Structure formats: C-alpha cells, structure tokens
C-alpha cells in the first residue's frame, strides 16, 4: 500500500509538473539556502581548523586581556605583558621550549615616495617555528639582530608588491616611522582570508620594536611558547597563570589581566562562533521553510477540493479513511521530499560556485549531517503541513464527494 501511494503521488506530481514545481519551490529554496550557507561556513571552518592543526597543538599563547567595563576603565588599567614576564616564565617553568615574545603595532612604511600602513611585528627568532611560517628569500631575524637592536626587516609579500620594491628587494631599505630599516628577507605567502591579504606585514627584531614603540608596546604584546610534553599542557597553563598573577600583583578576588590559550582553545572558540552563525542562519532559513510548508498546505487543500470526486470514487470502491489519509499525506511528503532533494543538490552546487567565485575563499564543504538535516526538514514540513489537507480528504462523505462537480 505504501509503494502504491508513492507511485500514485509521483503520478499526480508528474501530471501537474508546473504546479508541483511551484508548490515545492519554497521548500527547494529553503533547503538550498541551508545547504549553501552550511557548506560555506563548514568550508571556512575546515580550512581554519587545518591551518591551526598544522601549527601543532602543544603551543600556548598568552596575551594581555581584561573584561572591559568602560573605556575610561580600560585606559586607566590597560593590561600589559613585558619581556620580563616572558623571561620569568621561561626561567621558572621547566617544560617551556621555543619561547617567543612578540609585540605588534600598526605603522606607516615608506619607500621611493610610496607610503602605506602595515602591521609591524616585533618578533623573536623562534617566530618561524612557532607559527609554522618561514622565510622564502634571504634570511630571518637572528639572536644577534635582537642583541644589537639591529634595524633590519623581513617583509610580507604584499608590501613588496604594493611598494614596488622590485624582483629582488633584499639589501634595499625602507622607512618604518621614518627610521630606515634594511630588508634582509621575504616571508612565504600566507594567502588571503575573505579577500583580505594576510601578507601585509613586516617583522623586525623585538628589541628594535621596543626601542621604537616604548612602553605602550607592552599592551600589544604576545608570548608564545611550546610545551615539550603534551601531558604537561594544562599544568604549564596553571603555572603560568599563578606566576603572572603574582607578578602583576592581582588580588585573589580579581580576574586575570591576561589570557592563556592553547590551539585547542582557539579551535573551540572558533567553532563556537561558527555554530552561533550557523544557528542564526538556520533560524532565518527555518522561516522560509515554514512559508514553503504553508505553500504546500495551500496547494494540497486546492488539490483535495479538485479531487473530491476522485476521493468519492475511491471510497465507493472500498478505500478506508486511513487509505485516503495516507494517500494524500504521502503525496504531500513526496512533494516536499523531492523539493528537499533538489534543494540539496542545488545547495551543494551553489556552495561550490560561491566558494569559487569569491576570490581566495576556501572550498565549500557539505557535511553529511547537513544533507540529512535537509531531508529531515523537508520531510517533516511535508508531514506537518500535509496532515490537515489529508485529514480533510479522509473525512469527506462519499455520497457528497461522488456528487461533487
């Protein structure tokens, strides 16, 4: 009987192709937009997750941080991290290797009459290993560069291109805050994220950066290090917190003025964000599915009226209420299921197309759960909005239905 009803439903859907298509268009668009959005978000997530995973999960990052109450409060109590903090951590905790403190600032660079703003990182020789990004041409910063506060710079590729520094810029000079720096290396390309270049930055020795920016730099400091033994990760985290609290003289009832995070924390907070975005988008799409469902209900009600005589005939030759109910319910569900199926295919196609069209966008990724969700949603909507018209059909009196013109 079930198969009979599906065949009947398909027969009726095919004999009214245009109407069936328009009826299920709402479901189709709703499901297609869910799949597209999920595929794009999951694509971004997958690519970021991969980038983070590449760095290794035994890296801890510490940055100044406070729960901001007001702007005035923030300006008076701006948290900072100092080189001494970094040194103390390294000396006190045995499991730390590759410690690399870093500061970052935005400054103007000039060369040959061209000017632009860029990120200046005051970095440590360990920067390469910790971040998994390496110099491509020339050399990186060394311990000696730091010791002698040398005015040398390693550039991101975007600066080389936009400042027209030529094929081989190594050995040339650029001005950072009007101080001449000698170019010693070029970093490998990081690519772009949402069309935003990730290669607009310049690395200078940490010591030279501190000379240039002074005390304010501590507010934008960043300490990264590797923990030799993965098992000690949490232990080291706690030790760092205890030492920094003591050094910053934070009373027991006050929160930390720094934030310690591992790669895992970053992945987790990122996935929380994407989940929230996904939920919001799905909520909006849910409304469109609801509208689609009402469309199906509307047309099914019309169908029931149009086919009153058919219902009468079927009842006369022995169809029970249940038979008629399941026939029309299955027709509604088949209709919305087909809409959902086309929507899923369309969504996958649109997701890939969008990821292709937006420059530097990571490839779309449609997870299996989204496909199941699409099918589940469309079937559920079909049942929800098919029950009422099907019930109406089943309740028809056969005599009246047979007489219906």
């Amino acid at each position: 009987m079930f198969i009979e009803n599906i065949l009947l439903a398909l027969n009726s859907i095919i004999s009214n192709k245009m109407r069936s298509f328009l009826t299920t268009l709402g479901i189709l668009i709703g499901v297609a937009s869910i799949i597209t959005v999920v595929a794009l978000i999951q694509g971004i997530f997958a690519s970021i997750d991969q980038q983070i995973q590449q760095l290794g999960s035994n890296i801890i990052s510490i940055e100044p941080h406070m729960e901001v109450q007001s702007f005035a409060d923030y300006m008076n109590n701006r948290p900072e991290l100092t080189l001494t903090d970094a040194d103390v951590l390294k000396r006190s905790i045995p499991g730390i290797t590759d410690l690399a403190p870093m500061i970052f600032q935005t400054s103007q660079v000039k060369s040959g009459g061209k000017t632009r703003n860029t990120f200046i990182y005051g970095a440590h020789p360990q920067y390469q290993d910790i971040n998994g990004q390496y110099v491509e041409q020339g050399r990186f910063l060394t311990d000696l560069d730091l010791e002698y506060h040398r005015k040398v710079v390693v550039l991101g590729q975007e600066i080389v291109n936009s400042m027209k520094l030529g094929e081989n810029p190594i050995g040339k000079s650029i001005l950072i805050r009007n101080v001449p720096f000698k170019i010693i290396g070029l970093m490998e390309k990081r690519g772009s994220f949402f069309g935003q270049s990730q290669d607009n930055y310049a690395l200078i020795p940490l010591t030279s950066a501190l000379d240039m920016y002074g005390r304010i730099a501590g507010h934008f400091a960043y300490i990264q290090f590797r923990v030799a033994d993965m098992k000690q990760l949490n232990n080291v985290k706690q030790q760092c917190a205890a030492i920094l609290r003591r050094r910053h003289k934070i009373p027991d009832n006050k929160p930390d003025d720094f934030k310690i995070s591992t790669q895992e924390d970053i992945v987790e907070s990122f996935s929380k964000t994407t989940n929230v975005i996904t939920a919001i988008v799905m909520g909006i799409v849910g409304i469109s599915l609801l509208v689609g469902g009402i469309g199906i209900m509307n047309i099914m009600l019309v169908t029931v009226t149009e086919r009153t005589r058919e219902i009468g005939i079927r009842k006369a030759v022995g169809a029970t209420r249940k038979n008629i109910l399941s026939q029309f319910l299955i027709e509604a569900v088949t209709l919305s299921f087909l809409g959902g199926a086309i929507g899923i295919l369309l969504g996958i196609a649109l997701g890939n197309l969008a990821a292709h069209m937006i420059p530097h966008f990571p490839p779309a990724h449609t997870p299996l759960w989204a496909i199941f969700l699409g099918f589940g949603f469309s079937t559920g909507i079909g049942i929800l909005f098919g029950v009422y018209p099907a019930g109406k059909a089943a309740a028809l009196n056969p005599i009246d239905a047979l007489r219906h013109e």
Partner: protein
Amino acid sequence: MLIQVEELTKTYVVGTEEVHALDHVSFNVGEGEFVSIMGASGSGKSTLMNLLGCLDTPTEGRYLLKETDVSKMNDEELAVVRNREIGFVFQVFNLLPGLTALHNVEVPLIYNRVPRKKRLEMSLAMLKAMGMGERAHHRPNQLSGGQRQRVAVARALVNSPSLILADEPTGNLDSKTTLELMELIRELNRKGNTIILVTHEPDIGAMANRTITLKDGKIIEDINHVH
C-alpha cells in the same frame, strides 16, 4: 437471502422540518435476482441506493447483507463491505481520469490488498471479458461512453462482489449503446450475479426480472416481469 431490508428509514432534518426520504421500507432480494428500482426524482430511490451501497447508514431499521447487519457499522467497516461485497456502476462512469482502463479496474483490488502481479492479471482478464482487452492502456478520455461504462463494469466485477449496484448506468449513453450495455448486464445476471439497477426510465426498468417502484419514500409496487 442475500438482502433483507426491514423497516428501513432515512430522515433528514431541513430547518425545523423532518423529511422522510425513506419511510419504513421492507423487502428482500435473493441471490441471483435482477431487480430494478424505479421512481420519479425525490421518490427516495437515490437514498435507498446509497443505503444498499453502504455509502450511508439508516436513521431507523435494519439492513442485512448476507445475514450480517451492516446498518450499525462504522465508516471503516462499511468501506470493507463496499470493497468486498458491492460493485458500483454509475451514470457518469466515475473512472479516475489520470489512470488507464487497466489501472482503474485495479483500484478495488489495491484496497483489497491483492498482490500487484495478481491484480494486473485479474484486471486484464476482467477487461478482456468485457471486450475491452485491447483498450486496457487507454485513458478514459480516449474511450467512448459505452467503452467507459464497460471499464466501469469491469471495475465493479473485479473483486467478485455479492451485489452489483447500477445507478442509472445508461443515463449518459445513446440508445444503441444502451441496449448493448443492458444486454451485458442481463448476461452477467444469467451468469449468477445479483443486480440492482436504479433507473427512472420504464423500458430500462422493465428489462429486469422484478421492479420495485418507490413514491414519497414508500414502496408502491413490487412486481415480477415475465420475459
């Protein structure tokens, strides 16, 4: 006795007034009979037809079909009785327009849960018996009125019902096809089928072996014909 009707009454309330569409009607029909029910419009013959066809339930009285009281049955039970025991032939044919002749004949078998392969065999055999074997894959709108009515008869017979109910079956046919159909119905009766035919045309009614005439919801005449 195939049909026992005792004091069957159907009352409709129109406004504040009670209308007796059928007023304490009693009669019996034996197996293998060919009965016509006649009467002018408003005589109650449609109401009687609906009750005999288990499409409706009476206000009062009893209707026993094969010794079973069907007058107190619920919707689901009545549907099963219609499916197994009754074959309808309607004035306007009432075929499903989207289905071929074969699939129209198949419909009662679907509700009787006959397996698909067997269903199609039985339906095709029945169409052939009605002389419609070559038109099995035509849709109703590709068939003439007489051909449609033959498909409808095939559908009525396919579940081997105890009773064939024909409601003005010739009403939409020309005189030539009317005679052909009536000959077909008489032939079915000769083969042992019990037939009740509702009509308002005296010469059609006279082709049955017995005629029950209704007026104002009461039987005014019940005669046998000698052919």
